[in-house]
């Protein structure tokens, strides 16, 4: 992974130095090795702080909404899943394509530090991954973990490829894999109504309305969100009753339905670890079932499933779990 990081830093410095771009969007080193955070680099010196390691899970495309409005071009590093969000934002005229230089960067899956800590590993200093083995160097010695167990949830079912690139930095080919990303959703659908209600009631009751999911979601980037707008009738800052917990997540999932690229950021950032991706994936599974395979963000133009129709669409009364019952 270090070779890729070197190439990333080198390209970033070259682009910035040559003046081809006015700034570079990447990940900045945090206090530890496992907490890099998205950052804008505007000078070559700053780029020393640029990192690309096993914990760079953040999706950078959303930051380009504001940054692409600035003068001059912006270079950005996009993992395969980020490119779908990038395309979707171009389709919605939120990012100005000409002002962005997209560098497709290789990704073999990112790690989840909470899962590593949950395995009892602490005082982490460095991480190295070889094939399926994760070697975690800590103050108490080196631990070896099995990669699939500590991957970010969104990477467990990832079959994504780069959709857009002006340049690419791919040194290792990713082995193709066949994973059913709807397995969890199907499991929930198989439950009885009461079980499903209990499951979601328990999960959503944890929600503290910190809006992290909304603030990180590329599809959820309204200039003024309906929950912040008192005139909308459903504006609320806190879930003071059970209904608000459901209302917030149902409306948010509905607003991104047909536009969500399943990038998994919402689940990654939720402090209460609510499996929010299972909500959006339900809509994706239904849309695929009712109206045919559709992956948001594959193209940068055209209509989404909710702004198009066919004469023979399924009737709502019999439409359940992707089929007409």
């Amino acid at each position, binding site marked *: 992974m270090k070779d890729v990081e070197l190439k990333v830093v080198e390209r970033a410095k070259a682009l910035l130095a040559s003046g081809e771009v006015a700034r570079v969007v990447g990940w900045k080193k945090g206090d530890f090795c496992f907490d890099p955070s998205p950052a804008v680099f505007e000078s070559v010196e700053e780029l020393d702080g640029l990192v690309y390691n096993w914990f760079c899970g953040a999706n950078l495309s959303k930051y380009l909404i504001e940054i692409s409005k600035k003068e001059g071009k912006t270079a950005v590093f996009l993992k395969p899943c980020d490119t779908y969000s990038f395309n979707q934002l171009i389709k*919605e*005229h939120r990012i100005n394509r000409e002002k962005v230089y997209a560098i497709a960067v290789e990704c073999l899956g990112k790690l989840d530090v909470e899962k590593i800590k949950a395995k009892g590993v602490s005082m982490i200093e460095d991480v190295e991954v070889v094939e399926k083995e994760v070697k975690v160097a800590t103050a108490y010695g080196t631990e070896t973990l099995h990669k699939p167990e500590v991957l970010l949830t969104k990477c467990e079912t990832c079959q994504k490829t780069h959709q857009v690139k002006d340049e690419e930095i791919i040194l290792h080919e990713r082995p193709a894999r066949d994973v059913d990303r709807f397995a969890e959703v199907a499991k929930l659908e198989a439950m009885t109504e009461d079980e499903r209600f209990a499951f979601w009631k328990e999960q959503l009751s944890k929600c503290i309305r910190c809006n992290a999911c909304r603030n990180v979601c590329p599809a959820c980037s309204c*200039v003024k969100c309906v929950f912040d*707008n008192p*005139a*909308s009738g459903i504006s609320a800052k806190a879930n003071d009753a059970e209904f608000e917990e459901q209302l917030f997540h149902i409306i948010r999932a509905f607003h991104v339905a047909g536009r969500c690229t399943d990038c998994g950021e919402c689940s990654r950032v939720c402090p209460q670890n609510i499996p929010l991706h299972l909500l959006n994936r339900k809509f994706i599974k239904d849309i695929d079932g009712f109206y045919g395979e559709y992956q948001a963000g594959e193209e940068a133009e055209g209509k*989404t499933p909710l702004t198009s129709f066919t004469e023979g669409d399924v009737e709502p009364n019999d439409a359940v779990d992707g089929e007409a019952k």
Partner: protein
Amino acid sequence: MQRIGVFICWCGSNIAATVDVVKVAETIKNEPGVVFAANYQYMCSENGQQLIKQAIKEHNLTGIVVGACSPRMHEATFRKAAEEAGMNPYMVEIANIREHCSWIHKDMEETTEKAVVLVRTAIAKVKLNAPLMAGESPVIKRALVIGGGIAGIQAALDIADAGFEVDIVEKNATIGGRMAQLDKTFPTLDCSACILTPKMVDCAQHEKIDILSYSEVEEVKGFVGNFNVKIRRKARYVDESKCTGCKICMEKCPAKKGANEFNMGLDNRPAIHIPFAQAIPNVAVIDPEQCIKLKTGKCGICQKFCGVGAIDYEQKDTFVERQYGAIVVATGFKPIALDNFNEYGYADNKDVITSLELERLMNAAGPTGGVLLRPSDKQHPKVITFIQCVGSRDSSGCGKPYCSKICCMYTAKHAMLIREKYPDTEVHVFYIDVRTPGKNYDEFHRRAVEQYGVDYIKGMVGKVYNENGKLMVQGSNLIDNEQITIESDLVVLATAIEPEPSVRKIATLLTASIDTNNFLTESHAKLRPVESPTAGVYLAGVCQGPKDIPETVSQASACAAKVIGLLVKDKLKTNPCVAQPDENMCNGCGQCANVCPYGAITYVDKEFRLGGGKTEIRRVATVNPAVCQGCGACTVTCPSGAMDLKGFSSKQIMSEVEAICKM
């Protein structure tokens, strides 16, 4: 603070019978914001409206709620009354406590409670109403008539006589429609062509009328007063301006085997032909499926013999785009197909014919030159049996559930004409009920029975079968409780009629609502029978329901009156309840334009001032109020709720929901 007046209508006893109107008015009196509450027998009456006007002035009300019948009935009335009293007409809300409450619930306590809730809901909405000004849009002083039958011709003539330009778009090569195929017409028995052709000539010569024959409507955009219609001029392969109608080409054309639709396929016609003698425009047309030149490239005889060089094999469909203020639909009808009725043996016996085919056989311009001969062996039929209600009044799914209304009269006409011309012919009519209502109709039918001795048998025919050359018509005679079989030479089926199938496409183009039998639905069965719910679209003739010629003509004139009433106006009030984006919240994401059926939404880059002197250019949506019809599809697609609908804003509907659920 809102000062709201509430008026509860008794509607005579329609509401007062099951709703305690006094109690409703009392309970509503102490609703927050209500300063005046009254109830009256007839709110929509003159002094009912006077009560409103007086209350507005006296209590200087800011909004009023009327608990009465459906808003679709009197919303306009109460809005006009409020306007005359100086209040903005859109500060009026109606609570439907008749159709949705008093008429459908029995228990007094329950209906009163519901009435209070419905009125409270209307109050919740009116509190959030904003005064709206109806916009205006220009009216294009030209009408379009789709269909050139008697309905279309009559409507066009009346409109043109009022001085407005009219375009008639006719699918076939000539106008005249179904009536041109008839021999005589009831109840006066005067010859159909004699009363139709003069009107056709008037149309042709009227400087205000433009006939677009052999053409179809391709696309309709816009709305009442501003329709933009694209018309496809199908290729005739004959130049209309040159052809003089001399018919030499018809004689010379070698491809004679085409089935002559005008004579219901009973005889043939050449590939190049003029449908019938008095055709308007009197111009030939080439049938591409039958013309040897167009199919194989050989021949071209008609071009050689044409004295004026009007034939042009390269002619292609052309498109014409025109603007209209109003559209009259007069697409007419056709007899239903009889595939589901093989018990009458129509498919396997040439001598089992439909009434329209009989019209052609009896018509002088028909295949037998007006002499009634059997299609099979051209013999004169001695015994003719008529069978009524073939396919009509049939709810089993094979036919049409409705009564086709005109068959009893035209069968009586046929029976009388046959008995009069050929007195030796035996005529029998199997019927379920003879339906001849109206002026001189029953007397007409009785003449057929009493003066011309037509044998009417009450009972339906079970089946018709061929036995050594004779047509055996087996049916029941309910009066004598017998099953009888009549040996007949000719069997005439009074076939059910249905609207022209192409009307379905036109209904979608005009967003005119249409029922399951393909008849266009009128705006109100009794009060607005000739208008479609879609503003600016009018219905004439059988496209709206089965009717005979007198009714069709009167409906056509009624349409003309309505169209003239519309075209006289220079400006039309447009619906003010249109979409309105809030630029500060708009993401410019383009989703709303995807769902707008009228293309009313466009995007512009606009400069916004941020804090500290900085500004920002953002792409925002704008709505053209003249084009937007206020459906609201865009308001739901817009995630941030920037797009809202005036008159039905999200906040208003939310407050209605809250008022309804508050017990």
